[in-house]
């Protein structure tokens, strides 16, 4: 249900959609994924990246496995990120706020290795008496567009995944979906105070010990009503589809959906994968 809705909101070509219907179940089985869903599309100049995410355990705090595909028929896992890789990307201008579009070339090197010059002076070896042990600097790790893709997928997920207040609660097994959650009421669907970022929910519930469910007095996480700037989120209730759509303005192409009076929510992204840093200057 979530995949079908997400794919319909994203606007995936029919061929890719039909391929994914065959391959995604196999992917879930092979990697034993739980809570796996179609994440979205990051459009590149040459090719589009179709992203699929899943968790190996039921713990919501776990880092998900992220897969990508160009056609929906073959999937590959995105490489994990390390601080050194992120630093290498930042040094070459591919930071989180980079406005450069994705090319669609998975083998594109973001920091191609420099060619070593043939004539290199070696004064250190010629000078005698110097006993300083000079260590060579570690070579910068080579980063590709896939690393940047992983970074942006994580960033977009962190900034855009939302959950209705009360959907998750903490148990002895960890943070899971609250089976007693009856969903957002129809009269409250357009109130931003009824939703919060998933990361904020996890952070809040992680602080709570031995309380099940979390009372409202302990809910210190800011909801979408307290997000800054105030125009970040746009909430729309589609009465014909019985669906609440939330859009983050800083990521054009993102849409989160919540089914009112049900514990169903999700999000999908279909855009360029670029953070819109110019938004405050475009809204008047």
């Amino acid at each position, binding site marked *: 249900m979530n995949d079908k809705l997400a794919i319909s909101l994203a606007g995936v070509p029919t061929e890719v959609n039909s391929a994914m219907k065959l391959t995604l179940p196999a992917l879930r089985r092979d990697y034993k994924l739980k809570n796996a869903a179609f994440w979205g599309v990051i459009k590149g100049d040459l090719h589009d990246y179709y992203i699929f995410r899943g968790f190996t355990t039921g713990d919501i705090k776990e880092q998900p496995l992220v897969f990508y595909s160009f056609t929906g028929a073959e999937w590959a896992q995105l490489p994990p990120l390390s601080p050194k890789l992120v630093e290498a990307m930042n040094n070459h201008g591919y930071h989180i706020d980079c406005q450069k579009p994705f090319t669609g070339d998975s083998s594109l090197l973001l920091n191609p290795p420099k060619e070593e010059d043939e004539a290199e002076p070696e004064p250190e070896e010629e000078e005698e008496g110097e006993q300083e042990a000079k260590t060579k600097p570690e070579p910068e790790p080579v980063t590709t567009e896939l690393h940047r893709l992983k970074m942006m997928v994580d960033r977009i997920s962190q900034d855009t995944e939302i959950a209705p207040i009360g959907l998750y609660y903490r148990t002895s097994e960890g943070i899971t979906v609250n089976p007693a959650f009856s969903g957002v009421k129809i009269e409250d669907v357009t109130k931003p105070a009824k939703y919060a970022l998933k990361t904020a929910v996890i952070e809040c519930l992680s602080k709570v010990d031995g309380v099940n469910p979390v009372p409202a007095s302990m809910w210190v996480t800011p909801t979408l009503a307290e997000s800054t700037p105030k125009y970040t989120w*746009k909430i729309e209730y589609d009465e014909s589809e019985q669906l609440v759509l939330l859009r983050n303005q800083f990521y054009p192409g993102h849409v989160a959906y919540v089914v009112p009076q049900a514990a169903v929510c999700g999000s999908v992204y279909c855009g360029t994968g670029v953070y819109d840093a110019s938004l405050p200057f475009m809204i008047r």
Partner: protein
Amino acid sequence: MEELQELVRLVVQLNVESKDDIMSLWNRINNPVEPENAAPVEEPEEAEKKPAEGEENEEEEEQEQPEEEEDPTEVPFDSIMDTLGMLSRHGVHLPETECHRIAVAIHKFVKSKPCSDLRFFGRLEATSNKPYYAYYVLEAKPDDDEPEEEAEEEAAEEEAEPAESESTVPPGPPAKQVGPRTKGLPAADERGTGLNEFAYFVSIDLETWTRLPDLTPLMLCQSRYMAYRLSGDLGRKLPINKGEAGYMRCILARIAFSTVVHPKGMYMTDPEAEPDEPVAPELDEEWLGTEGIDSLDSWVHVRNMIYKNGKVSSFEEEEEEPEEEEDDDEDDPFAAVKRQAAALACWEDPLTAAEEDVFAPRGKRPAALSPVTADGKGMWQMRKLGLVSAARQVVMLKHTVWPGAMVVATNQAKTYACVYIGDGLKRQLLPLPPVPMLMTPVVDMHEQNDPTAEDEAEIRRKREAAEEQEAEED
């Protein structure tokens, strides 16, 4: 799926025509060729014999029928659905229900306002300050245009009105460069020519259509230095004439003149014209399709280009303008500016439009029917979709600088469409405005206490004593 589409088409046609005798119409639609059903064509006469609403209504029906058959501006419903459905099947986010609503809306629009060269331009997303909206845009040449006096009055009002005092400094070059130099801009084009060759109608609910105001070169130049998200309110105030309506009109013109292309061979120049003579392309009635549509060289620009000064190039005036460089009018303070504006020959290059000077001349003008490869490297991307069979292969051209501008074609470009689905913003490699330099903290700064009145008096006393000593020594 095809059966469902056929059923939808039949139901819509019934709904639109709303004949009294639906069953006869149903038979006529389902079996238009079989001789047994040729009689239903005469059923409107039988319907007249029935005690209908009145003779006046029957006469109106008789009058309407020949008009509908002979109306050359009627856009076939099937072609719209085919085109939009093709877009929807290949990744362009236009659900089938939305395609159907658009097709019905266009059909009704044509009935209410006769026009030629009607085209579904696309959808512009409006997301700022309000819930999610989308503008649906139609491009057409209305047959019954408003008189030119109103357009002249609007242009006169625009020149008289100063820039809005509430406007903030637009991103890009400072405002002082835009103000004085815009005085040398050419006059506004009349309706049906130049920038105002096409009229644009927008709607949010696909029911009521609003015509956007005409363009002036001043508005176009100003829009190049602006980047705003559309809000869904045409009356929203922006630092441009006519507010959001005027701004959107500028965006649509820039997109249309940059991204609307046609298959090679569909248009041709006059074969009797001399090679160097600039002639506007005309539709080739003998065109039967273009082979090799999966190559960028098979797609050409037919529309004129927009100069940096906001004027649309005219094929007839192409050779005359450079000759004006020899005439120097010393009395006219804007002679140099006008000369530069007249000597412009450039594509609408949005990548550098905001960075370069407004009147900077750029290279040579490409000839008419030049391929899209002449726009520059990397401006267009080609993709092949639907690789099941060569006959059903769909080709998609995407413009990289105007994300959302695309051309989808199939069947040797006999079915193709230029559509824009986006937010009306050009791709920018730098955020607006430029990121300010980070102020590094001063580490070696030592804080000192402010001097008190006593300290100041002591310092003054020491200074006076030093001056007295210097005077004694002298």
